Structures are given as C-alpha cells and as structure tokens.
C-alpha cells in the first residue's frame, strides 16, 4: 500500500532542458510535501518543500507544483545541469492532527542529465 508513488524509476534529460519529476499520493491526510535528492553512497538531502495551502513553490532552478485535487505534485528543474544527476525522492507528511510528523517516501526517480 504505497501512499506515495513515483511511477517513473528513471528519467534522462539533455543538459539545459527542463526535467519534470512526478509524484502521486493517496493519503488525503498528507498536507506537507518535500523533495529530497540523493547521490550514491550519501544520505538524502533536502531540496524543496511545499505546504498544501500553496500550489507552487520556487527556489532558484527548482519549482514544485502541487495539485491537491489530483493528489499530484511535480518537481521542475530548469535548466537541468549534469550535477543534478541523482535519485529524487518525493516525501509527504500528514496533517499534525494525525499526531505524527512521519515522512512517507516514494521509491525515487533516477535523473540522468546528459551533457
């Protein structure tokens, strides 16, 4: 019962183009979403987040879009750079009334940016 799904295990993009990574969730109690980036042999590092009261959050080349009605979020990277090549994890946290601040992760999407 995957509550956070990243249906594309991998994505290849040319340098300079846009990378779009997608994430779907099933639990309507989720109200905060995060993207993490992971290089091999390292721990995940926080990239960007979005609260459910927003539909967009931007930080430099990274933008996260949230569509609550579709239970879908996406991460856009523009322009993509070779150093962006990594595994990207989508994660979600339920509303605090649920009594937990537990992160639920997707399986990850491996992004390869081709020079």
């Amino acid at each position: 019962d995957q509550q956070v799904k990243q249906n594309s295990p991998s994505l290849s993009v040319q340098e300079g183009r846009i990378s779009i990574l997608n994430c779907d969730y099933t639990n309507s109690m989720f109200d905060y979403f995060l993207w993490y980036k992971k290089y091999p042999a390292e721990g995940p590092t926080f990239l960007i987040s979005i609260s459910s009261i927003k539909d967009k959050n931007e930080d430099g080349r990274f933008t996260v879009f949230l569509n609550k009605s579709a239970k879908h979020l996406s991460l856009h990277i523009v322009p993509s750079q070779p150093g962006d090549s990594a595994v990207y994890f989508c994660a979600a946290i339920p509303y605090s009334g649920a009594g937990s601040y537990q992160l639920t992760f997707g399986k990850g999407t491996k992004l390869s940016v081709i020079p």
Partner: protein
Amino acid sequence: DTAVSQTPKYLVTQMGNDKSIKCEQNLGHDTMYWYKQDSKKFLKIMFSYNNKELIINETVPNRFSPKSPDKAHLNLHINSLELGDSAVYFCASSYRRQGSNEQFFGPGTRLTVL
C-alpha cells in the same frame, strides 16, 4: 562540522551476531529517526525519538532496539542478525513541528549480513 554523522559507514557481519550503529547530530534538533533502505530502494521509517522519548515505532522486529542517551544521539542495536537485515540504514534529525519538517540525513550505514 558534519551535521548528522553515523558510524560505521560499512558493516559486514555474520548471521546471528549482535551489532550497533551510532548516530550523532550537532544541529540542536529535538527529534531523531532511523530509516531502512532495502534492496528495492524504499526508504522506510523504523523509529523516531523526540527528546529521548520514543514516538514512532513501526512494525520492526524486536531484535532492533534504538537507544537515545541524549537529544543528540540515537543508536541502533540489532540482535541476532539475519540475512534480511542487509540494507542501508539512515539516521536523520529534525525539529518536531508542523509544516517545516525538513529532516537532515546522515550518510548511511551499509549493513551486509553473510
């Protein structure tokens, strides 16, 4: 000035042994976590401690016992290791508050049980 550190980075051991993984954070966070990333690459929460108190305990065999001597440390002890325990274990820390719950992860400990 590592934020979240884990030792050891690699651990190779025989079935049936008992081993520990240590985690320390110097970020002043009040909550620490252990995650397991299995062969299918899923990152799953195992435990969480807030101010040395256990607040999350997912369905994990009781051979796994976390210990938090203080807010900055959360160690993981594993008894009677089994082949299926082979995985990468990540420690993480954060502030426990609604909304901004960015968790900071350690580099991981790759455990191989032979």
